[in-house]
């Protein structure tokens, strides 16, 4: 039975995961683009990404492009599976509430 995931369910982290799972496997999103998309500050996004990274749900890759630091983000297979399980659990809550 699918279980709700407290790490993912926090509203900002839910939005982060929702955005990153939209990408195809192997795709990465630029950190700056994600802050713009979510309307977050760098620090706020960074803090939530750290929690997701510690849980093994998000991969953070730092590199240099034209000598400028760039950070790219992607969801891990574990993160994608955890997110899908969380969505299934949310849907199960709704189904259980429907009158029989």
């Amino acid at each position: 039975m699918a279980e709700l995931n407290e790490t993912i369910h926090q509203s900002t982290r839910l939005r982060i995961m929702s955005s990153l799972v939209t990408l195809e496997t192997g795709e990465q999103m630029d950190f700056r683009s994600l802050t713009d998309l979510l309307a977050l500050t760098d620090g706020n996004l960074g803090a939530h990404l750290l929690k997701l990274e510690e849980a093994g749900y998000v991969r953070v890759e730092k590199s240099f492009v034209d000598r400028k630091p760039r950070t790219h983000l992607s969801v891990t297979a574990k993160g994608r599976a955890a997110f899908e399980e969380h969505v299934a659990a949310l849907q199960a809550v709704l189904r259980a509430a429907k009158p029989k």
Partner: protein
Amino acid sequence: MNLSPDEAESALADIDRMVARTRRAVAAGHWAQQLVLWGVVWMLGFGASQFLRVNEGFIWGPLSLTGAVVSWWIGFRDPKPIRGAVVQRIGLFFLTLAGFAGVWAVILHPFNVQHFGAYVATVFMFAYVVGGIWFGRFFIWLGLGVTAAAVTGVLLLPQWLNLWMALAGGGSLVASGLYIRRAWR
């Protein structure tokens, strides 16, 4: 962890909204500049074909090549919001499509040059319609709209077809690119 049905419903709605916004942002990042680029190419190519008395191959050959090089540069340069295999696949798809249209240029030769121009335009608009399955209905409507404009031009404006394609076709691409660049970020 316990949630009420209302909380679960709200969370699922947030997820749907975020997925839709991300898809649109991805599309804006990839497609806005490409649409403007090829819209300008069409406007120049079809416009020159209407008013210049030269073989249209001399117009479209260099223009298409220039467009392809600039398109490749836009697609592969950093920084961009998303990096990964899908960008390369989209580029290869359009390259393949260009090859397909080119093969029929050889097979159908000699042909009505104006009709062929409209044909090539509709081939690429078919790609937008197909792409709209992944990137959103906007591209489906864009593809269908420009295709309808091309067919209308062939049937009703044969003497002004190139000018019509420059304005209706090229103009639509430019306007669409500017719109999604502004509205989808």
